[in-house]
Every structure is written in structure tokens, then in C-alpha cells.
């Protein structure tokens, strides 16, 4: 490890973000199922109960509607809750509190009450957890105004974005990936923030623009490597922030490459890719040399069998096929 950096798993980066922000602001607290004594279902909150005690690391019963709504009320009255959903699939039973209360309140109250709250947890598919535990929620929730939607793909962004999220004065959805919690990365030892609303160019290129977010970035990276072997230099953009969308970074890339493939773990109908594609059309219509291609999850509930699960999710193969089509190869 070089001076001033550390190699950590993504879950540890998240833990550090929470810990540092709890240190910084006594009104920040964590609430969720198994966050305390169990040390987190995915060990993101490991050790935090020992350090901060049960007043600020609050174990709940299995009661998402109750504790998510309670945290909205706590946020309205002066606290800054971090709500952990063991999985964003379980946020659906809390959706009324998130949608009707958390994200409407500031506008609906004529700005009398703000709701500084972070809803975080794993989103999307894990490994064969079947149809009720594999939802991608960003398109569902992203349709609604009133919150910021973040989806980091690596430990560096996870820590810096979560710290920024906790300091926001409005609701933030912070989407993680169960399959990425163990991903290791070298990140700074000291404190840093990653700005909200800024995409990152992971790989510069000039032949085709790939846009994705969260775990699918890693699938795209594999595809980019294979494209290099074929002599095609793809530019890969990680959205990092889904809402507000950094269309400026995407548009600049499209104006350079003239070809676009969008990759999303969630379903294809009315997905994030559909929104990105439309905004590209609005901003760069004259620069496109081919129709925009989408590689998304097929229109099925997530099947259990690993053969079918692989088939419904975006794969390197499907991405390469889409690039070929975009480039008329």
C-alpha cells in the first residue's frame, strides 16, 4: 500500500463514509434491519454499534414501512437518518412513505420542511435470488422528482458519493450492488467527497460511446477490452449519478464518437437507458451516425436457474453484438 492510500472492499468504503459522517454530525444515525448486533446483513455497518451505541445504530424489526416512515418524520424534525434497506426489493413496502412523504414534502409544504435522508442498500440482481429479490429500482423511483439517485460502481465513488449524499438536504437514493461489496480498490486514507451530478469517463475512446452504471460497468469494461483487441476504441462512461443526469459529459462523448450503446441491468421498457437515449437525441441528434442501441434486462421476472438468469441480464456478448450493430459491422 502506497503512502496515503488503502486497499479496501467496497463495503468498507461505505462503512468509512458512514463512520466519518457520524463523527462530523451528531444528528446522523443509521436505522435498519440487522445493522447493529448482526453487524449488517452485508457487513456494511460492521463495528458501528460497538463504536456509536444503540442510540445511533438502530436495529429494527422487519417493518420497512414503519421505520422508513419514522425516519422521514425524524428528518423533518431535525435529524439526518441513513435508512438501510437490506435489499431495495423491500423498499416497495415502504414506497408510500418514500414517495408520498419524503420526496413531496419540501415542495408540497411550500418549503417549510426539508427531508435530509439517505435510503441505501443493495439494488438489482445478486446470484440466483430469483424474481422477488432482484429488482432494479432506479427507473421506477427515478421517474419521480424530489430526490437524487446515486449508483456507484466502485469503492472510491461509493465512499465519496455516500458522504456527499449524507450532506444533502433532501432525500437521496443510494443504490449499491450485493455482488460488488467485496470488490477491492485502492482509495485515499483521508477524507474526500465525490461530487453529485458528475459522470466519470472510465475509459477514453473515439469509436463508440458506452454508457452504464453500477455493476454493469464491470461487464462493460470486459466488453471494452475485447473491443480493443478488435481495434475498436470505445469510450466508457459511468453515470455514477443517475438523477440529475450528467448529460453534458455524455453529449460531449457522443459528439466525438457518433455511436452509442447504453447498458443497463434493469428492464428495457421505460428504463434509465430510454431516458439517456432520449436526452442524447435532444442534445446530439445531428451527431448520431447510427440508431442508439440498448442492452438491458429482458422483459421477464428474474428466473432462478443460473442459465436463464445469465440470459436475461446484459452480457459481454450482447454488448459486443450491440456495438457491432451500431458500427454497421
Amino acid at each position, binding site marked *: 500500500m502506497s503512502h496515503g492510500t488503502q486497499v479496501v472492499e467496497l463495503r468498507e468504503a461505505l462503512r468509512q463514509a458512514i463512520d466519518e459522517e457520524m463523527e462530523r454530525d451528531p444528528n446522523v*444515525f443509521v436505522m435498519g434491519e440487522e445493522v447493529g448486533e448482526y453487524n449488517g446483513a452485508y457487513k456494511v455497518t460492521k463495528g458501528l454499534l460497538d463504536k456509536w451505541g444503540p*442510540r445511533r445504530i438502530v436495529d*429494527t*424489526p422487519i*417493518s420497512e*414501512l*414503519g*421505520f*422508513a*416512515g*419514522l*425516519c*422521514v*418524520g*425524524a*428528518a*423533518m*424534525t*431535525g*435529524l439526518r437518518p441513513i435508512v438501510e434497506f437490506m435489499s431495495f426489493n423491500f423498499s416497495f*413496502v415502504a414506497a*408510500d*412513505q418514500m414517495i*408520498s*412523504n419524503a420526496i413531496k*414534502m*419540501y*415542495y*408540497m*409544504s*411550500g*418549503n*417549510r*420542511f*426539508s*427531508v*435530509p435522508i439517505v435510503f441505501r442498500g443493495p439494488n438489482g440482481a445478486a446470484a440466483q435470488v430469483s424474481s422477488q429479490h432482484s429488482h432494479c429500482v432506479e427507473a421506477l423511483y427515478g421517474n419521480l*422528482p*424530489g*430526490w*437524487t439517485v446515486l449508483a456507484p460502481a466502485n469503492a472510491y465513488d461509493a465512499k465519496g458519493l455516500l458522504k*456527499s449524499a449524507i*450532506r*444533502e*438536504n*433532501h432525500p437521496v437514493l443510494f443504490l449499491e450492488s450485493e455482488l460488488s461489496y467485496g470488490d477491492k480498490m485502492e482509495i485515499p486514507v483521508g477524507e474526500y*467527497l465525490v461530487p453529485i451530478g458528475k459522470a466519470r469517463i472510465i475509459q477514453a475512446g473515439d469509436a463508440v460511446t458506452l454508457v452504464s452504471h453500477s455493476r454493469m460497468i464491470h461487464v462493460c469494461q470486459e466488453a471494452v477490452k475485447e473491443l480493443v483487441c478488435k481495434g475498436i476504441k470505445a469510450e466508457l462512461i459511468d453515470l455514477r449519478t443517475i438523477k440529475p443526469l450528467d448529460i453534458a459529459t455524455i453529449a460531449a462523448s457522443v459528439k466525438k464518437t457518433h455511436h452509442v450503446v447504453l447498458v443497463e441491468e434493469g428492464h428495457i421498457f421505460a428504463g434509465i437507458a430510454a431516458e439517456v437515449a432520449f436526452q442524447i437525441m435532444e442534445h446530439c441528434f445531428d451527431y448520431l451516425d447510427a440508431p442508439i442501441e440498448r442492452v438491458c434486462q429482458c422483459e421477464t421476472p428474474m428466473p432462478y436457474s443460473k442459465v436463464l438468469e445469465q440470459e436475461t441480464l446484459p452480457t459481454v456478448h450482447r454488448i459486443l453484438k450491440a456495438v457491432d450493430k451500431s458500427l454497421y459491422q
Partner: protein
Amino acid sequence: MFEVDREAIKKQLGSSLLKECLGRMLLIRHFELRAEAAYQQGKVGGFFHSYIGQEAIQTAAVQALGAENWYATSYRVHALALLLGASPEELMAELFGKVTGNAKGRGGSMHFFTDRLLGGFGIVAGQIPIATGAAFTLKYQGKKNEVAICFMGDGAVAQGAFHESLNLASLWNLPCIYVIENNQWGMGTAVHRAISVPCLAEDKAAGYNMKAYTFDGMDFFTCYGGFQHLYHQVLKTERPVLVEVLTERFKGHSISDPALYRTKESLKQVIQRDPILIMKQALLEANMITEEEIKALEKEMRRRLLVALDFAEKSPWPDPLTLEEEVVAPDLGDDK
């Protein structure tokens, strides 16, 4: 049914405070009547839920508990906002959709707020977790002289939010007073067709290890004495309580509901127990108010509402250019 010593309460509050309370009940009544008339004239749109018939309950609660607590209620929110200090002008302007309104014309009839009123919530039972969260904040901050008060209708008892909130509040000893205003109807469905037990608080509370009470919601004195008791109880025990307040709204569920499910005879009976009549009678009998003073109060409330209507009418509309402003709260502007 909770019993109080009415004479003791009369003595404790005295004639001037009791007259003020009657004045507030009249203000609510006049506000609802004038707002409803404005609705009929097309000045007010959307949903509109009248508090007429239930005035004694929240008037007594705010008098007994004081404004310095966290409050939340359902979409039937006009009265509580008035009681917690919102002016008839800003509320009427909100109903008219004007920029001078309580929520800048963005909330409407169901979403009124004050510094301590967390809302008017449009989804049945949506406010229950919110008030529970306010109680959580009080405990987190170590504030031992405040409580959270959550009003809800009988219909909310059937919702999951009711169950989850009460479980958490009891589990974590949160200082919250949950008040079920049983006005007998969840929209057009009679309460016995919606809830599996006859006594909404007393039959439910045991399941949450909570104390339960039942008040006569048509009688200001019972409500005042009851809420005062609950307040001290919650501050002392640092435990939540559940209370059912028996009442009946005089109007339909909302302005578009002619309440055909209720017979004229039964409505007549209900109106005989008009909380404002009962209050007037009590004060007259105790020689704490005169007929002339009541007339003067009524006149004053009429005047105030005319001023409010005039203010709403003359207020400007929101500027369409501001439509997409202030959707999310800005950063705090610290060292972020």
C-alpha cells in the same frame, strides 16, 4: 369512557380562556363554512374535507398540550392548522391556490403546515410513521418536555402503517399520543364494516402493550381533561398512548360526498350533539359567557373570514415561471 370533573376544568381554565376556546371552535366552523361556499363558487378546487362536527377535539387537545409539540394529522387538516397559529388568510389563500397561501399554493386543502404541524397528509395513515419519527427525534435529542401528537381517522386503523408505527413506538418508548378521531365513517364505509373490533383504542392497545382511552369527542371538557391527562401520562412514563375520540362529522367525507349512506334522522341526532352548542350551553349555564358575547364572537369570526376571503381573492397567482423551482431543498451551504 373517560370521565372528567367539568367544574374543576371550568375553574382551572376560567371564563376568558374558555371563551377563547369557544372562539377557536367558531373560527374553525366559520372557516369551513366559508371555504365550502367558496368551493361551490369554483374558487377552490380538488379535494376538500370539512372538520365540522369535530371541532371540540383538536381545540381541546391544543389547549391542553400547548402548541410547542410536534403535530401531524390526516387530510382533514384545516382546524389543526388554525389552532397551531396559521392565519385564516394564508389558509384561505392556499385553498384558492394563491402564492400567498400557507404552502405557496402547492399543497391545497389537504396539505397545511405550521412550524410544529408536520402536515396534512393525503394518504390514509401516512402521517402515523411521520409523527412516530417526530417522537423518535424528541427522544434522540433528549427533549423531555415535548410530545408528538398524531391525529388519524377511524379508517387509518385498518392500515399497515398504524400497526407498524404503534409497534415501533411501544418497542422504543417513544413519547407519542396517537389519537383516533372516530367519526364513524371511512369515506362511505361505516366503521363496523371496516374494523374488526368495536373499541378502536381499548381493543387494539393491548396488542402494543399500550394504555388506551376513550373520550367523548363532542364535549370540549372531556377532551380537554382527557388530553391533559394523556400529556402528563406520556411525559411521566415516556411511553406512547392510544386514544379513541368518539365523534361524527356532520358533512360527507369530502365536499363531493352527499353522504347518502346516512339517514336524515341519524344526522339530525348527531347534530343535536353539536360540540359548539354543547360548549355554548355549558358556558352559559356556568355564567361564564352571555348571549351577547356569543353573538359578538360569531360576528367577529364572520368578519375575520370575510377578511380572509378578500385576502385570498386579491392575492396573486403563483408565477408559472416558478413552477419547477424549489423541488428539492438546497444544500445547507456549509463546508460541503
